[in-house]
Structures are given as structure tokens and as C-alpha cells.
């Protein structure tokens, strides 16, 4: 069970999908400024954030609570219009929400309560032109992938929190997104479930080769799941650092603990939180 205690073996070379223009990144975030209108004034949540995501990459966005990670993800998903800067996806800049950027939200209640687990995964496929049978077959396949085949006929309120998140992940993956956006999907789970799901997610990403943008505030999670880590500062946030962790050894290596130490410094995290996350092995 080496995967449980840490990183999956890295892929050495990734094949870039050929759907979009061969040159240039899949996603380009350039000097993006984001905020909310509250009581006639604009509150800035994200001051100035830039980074690129290549096709096939796993990008982690990490930062303290309230720094604007979800805001950034919602902007990339097309729910929030940038007040400044540019978000470009496969060459396009005016981004309406769409299944090419499937989102797994931070909230647990993101499943349709009136649909069974199977239907929650199959229905978006129907919306996107799959025939009934094809949609159901594909939904089953992805429920299999997330170890939920046995719960296909249940309703969401009959699932545990972790199971709900897995359904949401299956639903997002089944849409074959160009970019999978995940907002702290394991944030409110216990440490054991979280580690299991991280392992599962790594396996799934290997298998489907989807490009991943994953938001978290856990350093451990970032190291387990990422190719590169974008570190955000406090709100109104900027990018503090972008760290490439491809080829980093497992948690037992010196390199790994150095990297963890560096990220810890960048985020100025309390020791306790890190202990809690790391203390399971």
C-alpha cells in the first residue's frame, strides 16, 4: 500500500491532447482581478493572479481560507466575470459555464436530490446529446471507477459525505471535460477517507489523462496530487510562488520534506494543522 502513504509514481512524459491549438497553454490566466459587489461597493477577493495550465497537467491552487481560491475557480468555470485581466481557455476568452470545464464544487449538496445516484451522473450526459442507453452505460462505468456501483440506485440523501463527493467527481469525469475543476472536494472529510479519495483521484487522472485544476488549502494534498503548485497569499490575493514538483520523491525522501517545509513557510501555516494531516502514516 505505498500509494496510501504518499505519492503515486509520476508519469514521465504526458501526451498533450490534440483538440486545441498545438501551441500555447490550455488555460491562460493573466493578471486576473476578481471581486464581489456588496452594498454598492466592489470588494476585491483576487487582486492579481497569473498562471498557465498545459494540457494534461495537474495544477494545484493552494492558499489560506478566504483568499479567493473558490472565486478564481468560479471565474475559470465561467460563473464570475473578471474585473480585470484575462482568462483564456483553448484560445477562447468569453467563457460561459459549460461542460468542457466540469466543476466539482466545494459544497456537499451539489447532487440533485430528486435524482438517483445513477441519474445524477447520467442526466448531464443526456443534456449533452448522449442517448439514454449510452448515458446510463457511461454513468455506470464512471460509478464503477469511483467505487460507487453498489449505490447506483440510492438517492443522494442516503449517502455519506464522501460518497456524495465521489458521485460529483464521477459526474464531472463522465462529461469528458477538457479541464476538470475541483474545489476542495475532500475538504470536509476525515483524514482517512481523504487519503483514500486522493489515491483514487490519482488513479482516475492517470487513467483518463484529464487536465486537472485542483483547489486545496492542504500542503500534503497539494504534494500528493500535483504537478505544479500555485501558491496564493491572503486576500486580496496574488500569486506568491509557482512551484514545479514533478519528479519529487515520496514522503520519506529529503527532497519531499524540504519542499513541504518551503510551502509551509510560504503559507506560514501553524505546525498543528500539518501534524494533523501528516500524522496518519
Amino acid at each position, binding site marked *: 500500500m505505498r500509494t496510501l502513504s504518499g505519492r503515486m509514481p509520476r508519469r514521465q512524459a504526458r501526451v498533450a491532447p490534440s483538440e486545441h491549438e498545438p501551441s500555447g497553454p490550455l488555460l491562460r490566466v493573466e493578471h486576473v482581478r476578481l471581486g464581489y459587489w456588496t452594498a454598492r461597493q466592489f470588494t476585491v477577493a483576487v487582486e492579481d493572479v497569473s498562471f498557465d495550465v498545459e494540457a494534461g497537467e495537474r495544477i494545484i491552487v493552494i492558499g489560506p481560507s478566504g483568499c479567493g481560491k473558490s472565486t478564481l475557480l*468560479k471565474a475559470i*468555470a465561467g460563473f464570475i466575470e473578471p474585473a480585470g485581466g484575462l482568462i483564456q481557455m483553448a484560445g477562447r476568452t468569453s467563457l460561459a459555464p459549460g*461542460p468542457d470545464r466540469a466543476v466539482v464544487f466545494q459544497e456537499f449538496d451539489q447532487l*440533485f436530490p430528486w435524482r438517483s445516484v445513477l441519474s445524477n451522473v447520467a442526466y*448531464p450526459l443526456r443534456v449533452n446529446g448522449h442517448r439514454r442507453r449510452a448515458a446510463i452505460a457511461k454513468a455506470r462505468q464512471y460509478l464503477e471507477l469511483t467505487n460507487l456501483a453498489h449505490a447506483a440506485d440510492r438517492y443522494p440523501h442516503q449517502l455519506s459525505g464522501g460518497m456524495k463527493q465521489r458521485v460529483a467527481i464521477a459526474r464531472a469525469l463522465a*462529461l469528458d471535460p477538457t479541464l476538470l475543476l475541483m474545489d476542495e472536494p475532500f475538504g470536509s472529510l476525515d483524514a482517512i477517507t481523504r487519503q483514500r479519495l486522493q489515491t483514487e483521484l490519482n488513479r482516475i487522472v492517470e487513467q483518463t489523462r484529464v487536465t486537472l485544476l485542483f483547489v486545496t488549502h492542504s500542503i500534503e494534498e497539494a504534494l500528493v496530487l500535483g504537478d505544479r503548485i500555485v501558491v496564493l497569499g491572503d486576500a486580496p490575493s496574488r500569486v506568491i510562488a509557482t512551484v514545479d514538483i514533478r519528479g519529487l520523491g515520496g514522503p520519506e525522501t529529503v527532497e519531499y520534506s524540504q519542499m513541504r517545509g518551503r510551502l509551509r513557510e510560504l503559507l506560514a501555516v501553524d505546525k498543528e494543522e500539518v501534524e494533523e494531516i501528516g500524522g496518519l502514516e
Partner: protein
Amino acid sequence: MAVSSSAASIPRRPAAFGWARIPAIVRYPLVGAVLVAAWHYYAVHKGSLFMATPWQTVQEFWHGWRNGSLSEPTWATLRLLLEGIGIGAAIAAVLTAFATLSKIGEDALVLLTAVLNPLPGVAVLPIAMLLFGLNESAVRFVIANATIWPIAIAVSTGFKTANQTLVAVGRNVGLSRVRVITDVLAPAALPQAISGVRTAWAFGWRTIIAAELVFGVAGSSGGLGNYINNARQYFLTPQVFAGLLTIAILGVVFETLFGQLERRTVIRWGMKTS
């Protein structure tokens, strides 16, 4: 079984002895028997011209449903009521959808509800009679008016309080704005919609019976309110009571139907606790 997360599952202190320990199937008939007995003695005391006894009522009820003298007015009233509620629910749905899609629609709905909802259903009948004449359309109009507003209020509350994450998910998987309404907001608002229709049903009942009692309109055949009013004029007191019994039974029947509907939908989906 799965533990339901409702406040309703807070255990009530079990009664150590007495009434609450008797099973419900015994408790309700007992209370019922006492009430029927009270009714009986009051009726005997009052005289059969003014009060029918329970037994006379049941006999008349049976008789009226066998020979059609009671069932026909009942069906006539029910048909009109359902038509009126159908029209009202359809208009309410369109208004709410329109209010969700545009600001003007929302303003219109807010204004209309504020002005028209407080009006007692029957109060509109004189206008309806001027507009449509003394016929069924006038009644349909009145019922529709009495049902649109409770349904519209309930559904738009449901839309407004719908989980925004679900709306975001709907848009994320590629739903158009109209399909977000039909496929996400509408089912999300179902608990409120059902209770809105329930209220509308009660309003509609009161309104149609009152309309028939007061104005005697319900088309050519005459409805249940008419039946009761006629019986009163000729001192056919058991018929008056049989009519009332019919209304009461129908109330229980529809309450049960709504309960079933909820059990099969919103309760099954965990959107409402039983």
C-alpha cells in the same frame, strides 16, 4: 436503516401511563364515538327540523350517492374546481417562470400578489359575473384567481430559496436558462409547490362552495353548495348534513392524496422530512 437528520426524530418523552399509550387505531375511533354521541344528543334535543342526527345524515348520504341526487352536484363542483385550479396553477407557473427570467416579470408578480392575494376569493365573484355572466366561466375565473396567488407565492419562494449550488451545477453541465428553470428550479421548489397547491386547494374549495351558496351559480346542473342551499330552503335538514359530510370526506381524501404525493416525491428524496 439510515438515520434521518431531522429535528422530527427528537424522541418525545414516553408517557408512563394513560391515554397516549393506547394505540392510535383505538384512540381516534374512541374520540370519534364521543363526538358522534354528542352530536346525536344535541340533534335529538334540537329537533329534526334544525339538526339531523348522525344516523339520518349517513342514510341521506348513502341515498344521495345511490340515486345521484348528491353525487351529481358533487362531481359538478369537483370538475369546476379542478378546472379552476388547473387554470390557476398553469397561470401561476407561467408568471413565476416569467418572474425568474426578467426583472419586469418579477416586479409584476410582486405587485399582483400584493394586491390580489388578500382579496377573499368570493369577493371577486361580482366582477366575474359582470365579465362572464351568471355561468361556469365566472366560477372558473373566481377559482383561478383564488388559486393563482398562493401557488405563485409558494413556487417563487421555492425558486428563491433553491440551492444556488444546484443552479450552478445545472449551468455547468450545459443547461440553458429555460432548462435550468424546468430541470433544476422546478424540482427544487417542489416541496413549496406542493404545499402551495394544498393551500390553493383549500382556498378553492371554500370559494366555490361559498359562491354556490350565495349566488347559486355552477352551470345548469348546480353544484354541492347549491344542493346544500336548496335543501336548507325546503328544510330537508338531513340533506344539508349529507352535503357537509361529503365536503368533509373529500377534504380527508385529498389530504391523503397530497400526503401520498409527498411521500412518493419530496420525502423519498430527502427534501422534506415526514
